[in-house]
């Protein structure tokens, strides 16, 4: 999987890592110095689809009573399938890459689990199973045909990023004065459920950054680089780390203009305790974190998190030319059939989720069919031709109840 939403639940059981006493501590030193990236969002350029993008494909997803769903909260792309999590219908849907409905997993039906909501899932590239965490002690495994395979014991590790066969990385942070005076670690890499590496120790009772200071929206820690490596992000930290089973190092250090930056001592200044969320809310231009990080050749994609909701926040930085582009401002043209490549200007999908995943150089996003139909009207007087699939979709299936569409795009490399 390319990214993974780690949802830390307030009041969930605590990870008492000290129980694994024999674990070797690794400091997470960087073998290389991180690359400094100076990013001023106000200077970001826009452009048209033709200027910036090599290829863009719109894939409508089949709508029938069985396959109907709300929006894409998590997307995994395999060679054959789109695997989609929709939290509204609490289901995982599998469509072929052409958009035909293939299978559906509804945990509720299979296990009578009542109100349980699927927070996220893992696609295991080694076993080709879809792993759905059910509690901190076990997951359910399904195959890509939607069939139940097995119930899998995952010990006490919550769920995390699959970083190799039997290797798992997970992030956990719980700090509250009511907790025991003990040391825990934010990031742990475990093999066969035994901690292998531990990073970022903190005292659960006395750490200055409290649970109630954590902003969990868009709190995604891992973005996969390949089968055994991933980008790793910490909350309120402008450093982009690279994680592999054995190592963790800082790859890029982001620097923003002062007016957009968190105070240097933001996580350690105890006078800010319990006030960090309101600080971020009141200083809407401050970037409080990074997310949706993908690297394709020299293009580094990322999203800047702030509370200025109507503002743009997804960017592309070319590491060779140092050009900064704003994804939200790319305007459609003939190459995209005058259809927007994201709904950044007209909807909420891209604002909330950014690029959903990356696969073989393509980035994926989605928006609603309703948005597609509305945009189609704008191009009525333009001279262009839709590809057959899209033409058929727009003409035959014009129905406001249709499923969202998936847009995949590959950016030019010489930007």
């Amino acid at each position, binding site marked *: 999987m390319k990214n993974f939403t780690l949802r830390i639940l307030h009041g969930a059981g605590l990870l008492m890592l000290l129980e694994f006493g024999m674990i070797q501590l690794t400091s997470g030193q960087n073998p290389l110095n991180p690359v400094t990236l100076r990013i001023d969002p106000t200077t970001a350029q826009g452009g048209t689809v033709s200027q910036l993008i090599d290829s863009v494909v719109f894939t409508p997803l089949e709508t029938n009573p069985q396959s109907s769903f709300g929006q894409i909260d998590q997307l995994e792309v395999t060679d054959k399938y789109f695997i989609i999590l929709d939290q509204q219908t609490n289901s995982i849907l599998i469509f072929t890459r052409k958009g035909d409905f293939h299978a559906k997993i509804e945990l509720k039906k299979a296990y009578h689990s009542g109100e349980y909501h699927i927070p996220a899932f893992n696609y295991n590239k080694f076993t080709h199973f879809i792993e759905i965490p059910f509690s901190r002690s076990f997951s359910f495994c399904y195959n890509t045909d939607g069939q139940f395979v097995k119930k899998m014991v995952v010990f006490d590790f919550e769920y995390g990023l699959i970083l190799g066969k039997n290797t798992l990385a997970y992030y956990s942070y719980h700090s509250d004065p009511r907790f025991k005076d003990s040391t825990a670690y934010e990031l742990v890499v475990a093999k066969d459920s035994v901690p292998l590496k531990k990073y970022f120790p903190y005292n659960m009772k006395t750490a200055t950054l409290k649970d109630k200071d954590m902003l969990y929206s868009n709190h995604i820690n891992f973005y996969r680089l390949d089968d055994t490596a991933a980008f790793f992000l910490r909350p309120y930290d402008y450093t982009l780390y690279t994680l592999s089973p054995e190592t963790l190092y800082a790859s890029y250090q982001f620097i923003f203009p002062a007016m957009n930056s968190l105070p240097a001592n933001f996580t350690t200044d105890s006078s800010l305790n319990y006030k960090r969320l309101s600080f971020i809310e009141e200083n809407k231009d401050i970037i409080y974190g990074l997310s949706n990080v993908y690297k394709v050749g020299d293009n580094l994609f990322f999203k800047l998190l702030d509370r200025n909701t109507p503002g743009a926040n997804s960017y592309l930085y070319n590491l060779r030319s140092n050009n900064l582009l704003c994804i939200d401002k790319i*305007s459609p043209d003939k190459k995209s059939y005058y259809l927007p490549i994201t709904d950044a200007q007209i909807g909420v999908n891209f604002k909330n989720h950014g690029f959903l995943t990356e696969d073989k150089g393509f980035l994926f996003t989605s928006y609603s069919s309703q948005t597609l139909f509305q945009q189609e009207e704008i191009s009525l007087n333009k001279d262009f031709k839709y590809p057959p699939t899209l033409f058929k979709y727009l003409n035959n299936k014009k129905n406001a109840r249709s499923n969202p569409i998936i847009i995949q795009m590959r950016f030019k490399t010489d930007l």
Partner: protein
Amino acid sequence: MAIGYTAVAQTGDSTQIGHVDGIVRDSAHNYVLVSATVAVYSKDSNLINFQLTNTLGEFHFKGLPRNTPLVVVATYVGYENEMLHVTVPLKEDRMEMITLNMKRAENKLPELVVSYVPPVRMNKDTLEFNADAFKLDPNAQVEDLLKKLPGVTVWGDGTITVNGKQVVNVMVNGKPFFGGDSKVIIQNIPKNAVDKVQVYQQNKTPENPRDSVMMMNIKLKNSKSFGHFGKVSAGYGTDGHYQSVANINFFSRQTQFGIVGAGNNINKVAGNISTLLRNSTYKGVGAGIEYQPDFSMQGVNRPLEGGFIFQHDFIPDPDFYKNNRLTANYFIHNNTSRISRQTQTITSLGADSVQVQQNRSDNKQSGTEQDLSIQYDKHRGNNTYQIIGEGTANVTKSNNIQQNSIGNKGTEYKSANDVENNVLKSARNFSVAASLDHKKDASNHPNSPGQFNIKYSFEIGDGKDTELNRTVFSSLYSPAENQEINRRYDNNSNHTDQQLSFSLGNFSHWILPRWLQSINTTLQNELMVNTYHQLNSVLDKDTITNNYLHNNYLSGNSHYIIMNEMPALNFTRNIYQRLADRYNKMLTINFNVQQQFYYQKNNSSHTFQNITQNYSNFIPNAAISYENNQFGEFKDNYSLKFAVTAAYPTIDQLAPLTDSINLYYIQQGNPHLKPSKKKELSFNWGHSSSRMKNTFYYKVNISLGSVQNYFGDSIIIDAVGRRTHYWVNMGGNNFLKGIINLNKAFKFTHQELQVQLTTGGELSRIPSYMNDILNSSNSLLNYNTLNIHYAYKDKVAANFEQHYSFYRSLQNGIQNYSFNNRNRATMLSVSFNGSKKLTISSNITFNRAKSSGSTGANFTIWNADASYRLLKDNNLELKFSALDLLHQNTSIINYGIGNTITYGKTNVLQQYFIFTISYFPRKFGKGKDINK
């Protein structure tokens, strides 16, 4: 908030066919600007049309004048305005695509950058219309502005809708304005004092974002946030008719104070301060359908009314999360009325057909009512506090002379009863109520039942009635039964009412198994304790000695206490179904398990009135409701409710002191009367279209019920027409009611058409005994109102209204006798603005009333008036009105209840002519506004 927006042309003409197409770009950063506002102005800065750019950054204007210099202005938050001068050539209808290149306004506050004001913009979740962008007449009011705004409809009945959704509250600078009546706001505030009109949705409960209401805020320009407005008016006409009103209202950022007084002898009775303010607006006497003297009101009234309204906000910018406000209202109402009426009431009797009662009465009444209320509200964080104190004092004096006679249909009368009474009544009440509402902090205490609401109220009051009553009864057949009673009453009473109610919960996490915890459980309780103490002294005049003698039976004292305790456990379950960008559906199931304990005790100097009773009743209710919101299409609401309620016989029904002074109505008690229980099932259905153009919404309500142990009437009528009424428990009281309300608006460039239809009906079965024979009255009531409102610019407003109502009652038991009556009224009113100064309006109403046993009445009321405004700000109005030009006004009484039907006439206001001068003192802010 999902407020869609598409461009709407403000002006259009088939001869104007010029097109201007273009794109708005930030070329320094190489992108197009989406949702930038592009407006086309004429050379003299008049707004012709505006749009927001599409996702390609493009705009496309049609229908622009050719060969005319135009200015195209693009505005975007954070950018400097960009403008281009263009002229569409006469020979072409289209120009080449133009590009407006915008530059960022570096280091400037976005608000300061804009010099050419964009007509509309989305500011986060708020849709904002900039008043300055809309060029209207200098004397235009907010109402004129709203009518220009795309998606906004101001309905003939005063309702405002935005994209089909009804605006629940109109605020000024975020606060209620002089009581919150939207008409007071939109017809008094000049358009030029307005900075922005903001439309947004406000969540009523933060935990349920869908429970939201549409709000409108009129944001005044900073320099116009204080001022005054009002009306001083006096008129005098033929037959001594006069009217006058004086109103002045002051406001600042935090304080509002208004004072009003009015007096007339033309049946304009307001009854409360908000009606007076509502009918003293600057705009109200313009092209709209004017507030008329009430020609249908019975009698002639001479009201003198007045009061003040005060509001102070301790925080200048209250919002949904914080509020700290003191309000006070005082109203005094004095009225002198005289009603002369003549009616005929037909009662269906046993086998010997019907009884006809003729009544002629002359009632003179004068009285004063005063009401002072003071309210303090505070809302901060999770707590809402409210304290309300209210005091009332009323004095009424009346003189009533009645002549009654009774006979069978077609025969002479059998008996007559003449009454003269003089009454002096006074009453005082004082009450105080305090409430606290606490919402729980769900993030800190997810499982505790921490949400609660508690309310306590206390009322104390006293009353004093003095009455002199002289009745002469004469029987045609047996003169021995003739009687004359001359009675004097001195009744004193005092009462206290206390009410304590609370609700606490959700308890689900404590009492329900995990799999049922999605059900919301609250504990509720309501306790009422009322006491009533009465001291009556009744004297009868001895016709021989002319001395007043004590009436031992009717005199005495009593102490009555009622305790009503209603504990309840309420279970609610919400089930949501959502599909992003497509629909939201919600099903709510609610059960209220409620028990009622009712205790009453009466201690009286008459032993037969010493009664103690205890009742316990299970009075559950349940409701199921469903909401279906299909985004961009429609929103439907359905609800089905079932409720059981109980009614308990009062001491006056169980063991009254029977006063036989009125022999045509002698009320006897029934100590064996049992409580009645009503079961009612009701269904509501509402639909509103979410489309921006041509708003459409409708509501349907149907209810069905039956009453067990209905308090029915058993009437014994003797040979000379004397009636004695007894309360009896009866079965078979059922009803079925329904009402449908349809509303549709069509908005064109210069014209607006609104159609509103209300139709309703009621079928009921009322059982009774008539001379010991069981009778049931099966009645059908049907009423319909169609209203069509048409407006052309500000020039013409026309209203057509058709009312039709029908009542039929069929007796079953004593005789299969049928009554029916019909009322029909057709009203047409037209108002025409000849110029900005002159308004001529006229309205005509054709009335027709017909009833069983009468020949029917047709009459037409035609009114006309002309008004002329003087001075620069149109502050002075001269008006001449001619009312009831045809001299036909008649007030018809026409109604039916059970096995009786009443038809008659009263004295009414008739033809007069009146000349009125009104002055509207107004000032918003100091001097000229810089933005003007």
